[in-house]
């Protein structure tokens, strides 16, 4: 090496360390470090081929390991031991895209500020100044607020970090964008499933005349999620389940939870009645506070009717155990509920009615889940443990005879069975599946 180069080498090293192109405009850790003279003893990071500095490359290569990647890449890895943050990854198209999205977000935030200013102005004005009076003032403010909610979602909907956080399940449900994502995910499958169950199991005419679920209700027995409509073993459903009720609108509210059996056989009336298995009121619920373990509800002010394990007697068709979550407009008197539904049927003592409890206490049903119960090996034990009568009764379906007249055999062979056609008997008598050697088989048994 020439003398000139060897003299200039330390200086060139210094410059090359300072002049590398950073990914960010903020000074990195290495930029601050480079003010000191270059180290002469290798640090642990310099023994790693991923993070080795240029001056220790030769030593590493002599030790038998080749440095990995470019010096620029190694410096980047050295600066961020945990890896670069996702939004700072140095992909040009990605960074340009983020710039466009950030500019759009600024626009949306400015629009939100403008709309909020408009709302404040409208609220400060007197209702007499409006053409329609107070009603028109309220309408205009409500529509502006709705628009602000839309803008809030639009401001964040293009953010990859928000999307990633939601997909990781780390979204803060107090923020509208995460609630929006959660509702979209729910509508994509679970909502369709639960509306299908409502239709299949005839929940809508049988229990309520009209019902549209707007919240996600998941059911857990023994920490196991159960699909809506699944047939649950009576031993599994002996302790009360845990509900996970995810609402998609903001704010805290009080809810009532009603669990009812819609298919209790009623022998006297030759039909079915309904019976409630659990009623609890005044349960706080918010987007972030979604878990409701029914077994933990013990408060006198909340629990009205304690959990009764769902059981179905032998021979009776499956019982639909419906779980309803109803929104209250204020605190309820749980004691009145307790008195009214102590017999699990209601005042008239024939059948429980969700419609009547809804109308009486001004409740709005918004969440629904369902499971089914049939007679199984554990039902008798469960009934015995909880003092439920009827384990020794077996239901049998009553034979319903057909109103149709029996149909006589038809066809060419049937017409030629008589002695008049004795010469054809070899063709008409012993037909496989139609007759045995003596007579024709019954029409139904063929």
């Amino acid at each position, binding site marked *: 090496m020439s003398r000139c180069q060897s003299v200039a080498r330390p200086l060139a090293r210094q410059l090359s360390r300072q002049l590398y192109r950073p990914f960010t405009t903020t000074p990195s850790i290495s930029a601050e470090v480079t003010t000191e003279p270059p180290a002469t003893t290798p640090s642990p990071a310099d023994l790693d081929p991923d993070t080795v500095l240029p001056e220790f490359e030769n030593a590493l290569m002599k030790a038998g390991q080749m440095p990995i990647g470019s010096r620029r890449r190694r410096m980047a890895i050295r600066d961020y031991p945990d890896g670069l943050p996702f939004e700072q990854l140095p992909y040009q198209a*990605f960074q340009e895209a*983020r710039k466009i999205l950030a500019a759009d977000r600024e626009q949306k935030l400015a629009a939100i500020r403008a709309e909020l200013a408009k709302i404040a102005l409208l609220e400060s004005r007197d209702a007499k100044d409006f053409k329609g009076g107070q009603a028109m003032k309220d309408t205009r403010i409500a529509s502006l607020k709705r628009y602000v909610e839309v803008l809030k979602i639009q401001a964040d909907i293009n953010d*990859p970090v928000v999307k990633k956080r939601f997909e990781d399940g780390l979204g803060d449900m107090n923020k509208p964008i995460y609630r929006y994502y959660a509702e979209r995910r729910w509508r994509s499958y679970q909502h369709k499933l639960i509306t299908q169950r409502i239709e299949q199991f005839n929940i809508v005419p049988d229990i309520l005349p009209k019902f549209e679920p707007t919240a996600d209700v998941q059911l857990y027995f023994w920490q196991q999620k159960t699909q809506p409509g699944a047939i649950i073993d009576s031993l599994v459903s002996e302790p009360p389940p845990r509900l996970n009720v995810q609402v998609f609108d903001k704010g805290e509210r009080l809810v009532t939870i009603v669990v009812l059996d819609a298919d209790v056989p009623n022998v006297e009336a030759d039909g079915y009645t309904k019976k409630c298995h659990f009623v609890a009121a005044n349960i706080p619920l918010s987007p972030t506070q979604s878990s409701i373990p029914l077994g933990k509800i013990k408060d006198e002010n909340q629990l009205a009717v304690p959990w009764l394990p769902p059981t179905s007697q032998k021979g009776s068709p499956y019982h639909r155990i419906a779980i309803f979550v109803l929104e209250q407009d204020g605190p309820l008197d749980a004691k009145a509920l307790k008195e009214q539904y102590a017999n699990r049927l209601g005042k008239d003592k024939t059948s429980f009615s969700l419609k009547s409890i809804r109308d009486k206490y001004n409740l709005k049903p918004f969440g629904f889940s369902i499971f089914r119960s049939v007679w199984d090996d554990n039902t008798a034990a469960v009934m015995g443990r909880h003092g439920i009568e009827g384990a020794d009764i077996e239901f049998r379906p009553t034979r319903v005879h057909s109103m149709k007249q029996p149909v006589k055999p038809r066809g060419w062979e049937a017409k030629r069975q008589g002695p008049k056609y004795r010469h054809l008997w070899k063709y008409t008598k012993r037909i496989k599946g139609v007759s045995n050697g003596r007579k024709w088989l019954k029409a139904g048994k063929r």
Partner: protein
Amino acid sequence: MAFPPAFRWLPSRATVLPKTTSLAESFTRLFSTSPMAALKSANPDKANKRKKKGGPQRSEHFIKVRTLRQNMFPPPPAPLRMARLRHLRHWTIHRAWLLFRRQQREAMEKERARMQAGMYNACEELRTVSGPGEDKGVGYLYRVAMEKKGVWGKDAVPIEYARYQTDYPGATPWNHDWKRQT
């Protein structure tokens, strides 16, 4: 047009076709001059066997049909296979691209609406103003501006002035006084 040498197929003709054609061979003249066809026709037993072995008989339009099907029903492109973060970056770029196109489209729509409104306002102004000089009434300038002479070419008649071509056009194009006979 020069083919790259790799695609040029130059079989040694001499090995495939006999150099000297005898009298017997001249009776079975080859229809094709391509060496493969020559090979096949040289030993017809083998070629027939191969045909029988295959599935259904190929029609004479087999190649055409195959080409048509390939072009009319192309297989779908392979799905994008990306790891999670790469897909997220892809999603970000895609969203930004959609947003950018929306911004461009809306800006263009706004500009076009502005220009159209400007033209409309100008025409309204012309329609209400009374023309240059005393003899030109209100809307003269508008009527002149709406003239379409020369718009479609020097001697062309604009389509707005045209009438339906008929064998015997009436002397009066439209009888405004016509009434239904009661």
